[in-house]
């Protein structure tokens, strides 16, 4: 079982991966995140989950795929291309992220994949390029 909190430096309210369902190290990962009304973004409002946070959850899943517990480095977003939002996501939905490592070039890694809810695609990410920086993981 991958210990998400040992791999990611992110914490509440910005830790947007709930569980790893499947991981093939160095290749691909499937994660889930339950969307709930109890997240701070719903304090004053209703409606669709912020689309940028769908991308954040997907990108954090990439971080889990490439991360190593106890590693002092954390992932920095470098560039995103070809991101498409297909349909809105609401509280009660379970977001399923699928991330594949496309290539690594020196200290850079490139990921591709998608997210879905109940089998319906909600997000496509053609390409995310990341680099790494030293950051102490949160307590």
């Amino acid at each position, binding site marked *: 079982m991958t210990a998400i909190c040992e791999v990611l*430096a*992110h*914490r*509440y*309210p*910005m*830790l947007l991966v709930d569980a790893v369902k499947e991981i093939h190290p160095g290749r691909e990962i499937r994660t889930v995140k339950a969307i709930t009304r109890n997240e*701070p*973004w*719903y304090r*004053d*409002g*209703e*409606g*669709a*989950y*912020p*689309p*940028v*946070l769908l*991308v*954040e959850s997907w*990108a954090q899943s990439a971080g889990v795929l490439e991360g190593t517990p106890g590693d002092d480095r*954390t992932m*920095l*977003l*470098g*560039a*995103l*291309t*070809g*991101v*498409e*939002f297909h349909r809105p996501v609401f509280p009660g939905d379970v977001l399923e992220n699928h991330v594949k490592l496309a290539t690594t070039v020196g200290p850079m890694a490139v990921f591709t994949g998608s997210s879905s809810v109940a089998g319906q695609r909600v997000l496509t990410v053609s390409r995310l390029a990341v680099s790494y920086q030293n*950051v*102490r993981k*949160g*307590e």
Partner: protein
Amino acid sequence: MTSPVRGEIELRPDRSVRVHISPDEPVFAGHYPGRPVFPGMCLVEYVRLGALRTAPAPDLELAGLESVRFRSPVLPGDDLTITMDWNREGQSWCCTARASTGRGVAANLRLRFRHVDAP
């Protein structure tokens, strides 16, 4: 719509927008504990909100991110300035934007918007 950011967006006479990144933004608590860095996707959120303030048509929603290139981090206390340029592309609208802080360009972006009722 709900949003992960709390800052007040100021529309300026030149149609750019400006927003102060308060240390009280709730996302800083977890990104990262003891070492706050404004999340890149929250920067994209401010560009989305700024774009909607200058939108050339009513009832637009974010359809995609054609490209986002992060150049430098955004930190608590920064003043973020976003300049935008809109172009129509068939049924959608594209917003080419640049977000800057006092330390220089934070991100170059190209966002695509569609009409809310579009299929």
